[in-house]
C-alpha cells in the first residue's frame, strides 16, 4: 500500500512542480500560456521518470533481499 502512495505522490509532485515552474516563468516574462504548457509536459515526463527510477531501485533491492517484511502490497 505504501508503494502505491509513493508512486502517486511522485507523479503528482512532478506535475505540480512543472506547473509551478511554468507559472513562475510566465509570471516573470508575461507570456501567460506558453511556458505553463511546456513545463507541464516536462513535469509529467519528470514524474513518470521518477517513478521508473524508484521502481527500478525498489526491484533491485527486492531481488537482493528475497523478502522485505513491510512489502505487503
Amino acid at each position, binding site marked *: 500500500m*505504501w508503494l502505491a*502512495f*509513493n508512486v502517486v*505522490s*511522485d507523479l*503528482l*509532485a*512532478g506535475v*505540480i*512542480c*512543472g506547473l509551478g*515552474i511554468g507559472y513562475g516563468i510566465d509570471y516573470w516574462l508575461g507570456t501567460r500560456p506558453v511556458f505553463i504548457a511546456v*513545463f507541464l509536459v*516536462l*513535469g509529467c*515526463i*519528470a*514524474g513518470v*521518470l*521518477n517513478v521508473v527510477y524508484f521502481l527500478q*531501485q525498489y526491484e533491485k533491492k527486492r531481488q537482493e533481499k528475497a523478502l522485505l517484511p*513491510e512489502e505487503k502490497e
Partner: protein
Amino acid sequence: MSGPIEQFEIKPLISLPKIDGIDLSFTNSSLFMALAVGVGSVFFITAMRKRQLIPTKLQSVAEMVYELVSGMINEMVGPEGRKYIPFVFTLFTFVVLGNLLGLLPYSFTYTSHFAAVGTLSVFSILVTIIAGLKKRGLNWFTNFFPSGTPIAIAPILVPIEIISFCSKPLSLTIRLSVNMMVGHIMLKVIAGFIYSLSFWGGWLPLAFISILTVFEMGIAVLQAYVYTILTCVYLSDALHAH
C-alpha cells in the same frame, strides 16, 4: 460536535506582534513541535544515561532506533554516509514523534500540514545538496546530465532532470502529509458515526475505530520510516554518480 477538518486548525496560543507582515505567534503547531523535540531529547537522554553493557529496557529501545537508522544509512548510502547519521536520526525522531504525538486525543499533528513538512523536506534536500557539493564539488551537477547520454538530447533531458530534482521535496511532502491527513480525517469521520448511531448502532464503528487506531499507529511509524529512507536515497544520489 466538531467537524473532521477542525483538528487541523492552527490556533495561536501566545499571540505575538507581526514582524514585517509575518505572524510569529506561538501556535499549537509550534507547541507540538517543541513537545516532540522535548520528548525525544528527554527519552534519549534518560535512556542512554547509564550506558550499561547489558542494556536496560529503555536503553535497548533507544539502541533499536539507532540500529534502524544506521542500518538504513549503511544499506542505502554506504560507509561514506556514516557522517550523516546524526542528521537522519534527528529527522526520523522528529517525524515519528510528530506522527505518534498527533494520535493522542486533543493533540495536533504538525506532520499533516504541507507548510511544516514542506519546510522540513526542503531543508533535508538542501542538506543533500550541500553534502553532494562538499563530496564531489562541481561534479555534482553531472547528476542533471548523466555521462554517456548523447549531447543531442541535452536540451530536453536537462530541464526534465531539473524538474525531477525539484519535485523531490514536493513528493516527500505530499507522501507524508497526505497520509497523515487522510488517516486523521478518517478517524474523525468514523468517530462521528459512533455519535450519530447512538447507543445501539454505535458499537460497530467503535470496534472499527479501535482497529483503525492501531493501524494508524503502524502507518505513523511506517511513513516516518519511508520519509527517512527516501531522504537516504536522495543523499546517496547526491553522493554517488549514477
